[in-house]
């Protein structure tokens, strides 16, 4: 039983790493800053959640598990806030999203 839970945890950790790489590829290949922020922040929080869950399953309950949860809470708190601030700043300084439909270049109000 414990062995099986350990393997489930390992699969989750690998999934987290896979998500991380997918996010990095997205950041590298997406066309503008907003899509890149999107790729990075979603995969970062997702990878953090999967990694936390995986490591918790593998290592079992200990004081380290509590710290792991604290790390997770901090990432969930700071990563979206940073992404939001970044996107807001990029928009404020005049970068406009690259749109597939070029009809409405400046329809948006801050």
């Amino acid at each position: 039983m414990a062995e099986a839970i350990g393997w489930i945890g390992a699969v989750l950790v690998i999934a987290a790493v896979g998500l991380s790489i997918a996010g990095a590829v997205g950041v590298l290949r997406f066309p503008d800053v907003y899509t890149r922020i999107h790729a990075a922040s979603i995969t970062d929080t997702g990878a953090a959640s999967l990694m936390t869950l995986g490591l918790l399953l593998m290592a079992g309950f200990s004081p380290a598990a509590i710290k792991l949860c604290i790390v997770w809470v901090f990432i969930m708190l700071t990563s979206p806030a940073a992404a939001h601030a970044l996107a807001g700043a990029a928009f404020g300084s005049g970068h406009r999203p690259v749109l597939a439909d070029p009809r409405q270049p400046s329809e948006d109000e801050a």
Partner: protein
Amino acid sequence: MSLLLASPELELVFSALLLTLVAGLVVALLAARSVLTCILLMSAFSLTMALWLMTMDAPDVAFTEASVGAGVSTMILLGAALSSTDVIPSLRPGRLWFPAVACLAAFIGMALIVPDLPVFGDPGSPPSAYVGRLYLEQTPHDIGAPNVVTAVLASYRGFDTLGETTVIFAAGVGVLLLLGGQVRSPDAAPEDVSLRASAGSPVLSVAARLLIPIICLYAFYVLAHGEFGAGGGFQAGVILAAALILHALVFGVRETMKALPVGVVRACAALGVLGYAAVGFLAILNGGRFLDYDALLSPVFEAGLPSSHLAGGHHHWGQRIGILAIETGVMLAVASTMTAIFYAFTGRVSRSDAAGAS
């Protein structure tokens, strides 16, 4: 657990891989042509360096590198870079060859000693086999603290650390002498212009409001926990300064200066160093040597206290109180000095401000 644990060989390979990433960042730094990119790279360099230090079994150093290198250094660099041009002009090729040859010669000279250096990870190498091992063996009997790094830093080499703290304080004084007297141009940007960046989005404000108290609390945890795990006064001080810097970043330096006036910060910096030295003199007054924590408590009083768990039959309450006291001094000195430096670079503290506050 066995699923997770890496073999000793794998650990060495990890650290070699990470060091490669660090070196790659240095190469990128060599090529960078913009100051802000350089600062970004420096921040990433420090982060990776701290990760590498984790693989080298140096969590205390990793802690420091993460909080100092990636945090405070980046802020100070940004503060200084704001006032200068961003583009780095390239050097004329004629000027390049002499430094390049000199650095190459230095590299070759250093590489020539590699065959004489101990093998990577060798447990019997001269640095690891004698004095380091002695500290590891003696710490439970002498100090009673599980963290040998803290024991060496705060107790065995406490005098040295007092010197380091004084150097940090002196550096802070130097920065204030260079920049502190400057009067800031009054309100360069009207407030509504700067607020427009995040107007209508309280996300940052709420996140900062949530985080700042937690960071402060965490700094004190790091201070108190330094005896038992990674951490200590230096790290706690930098984390405390980071909380103040976050406050200044989100709510503006003026608000932070209202909450924590410049004069108070400067006084605290001096107080930290003085408190450290005072612990040393207290030991002398009790009949011991300078910074001899065992002399802090009288034996009669100490015998009444409960025995600490990792002490191996000894009490060590004097050591523990002494270490906590000087670490508090270090934290106060480091946090205030870093905050004062940040104030000096961003706020350009005026003389009247400082005089009015103190």
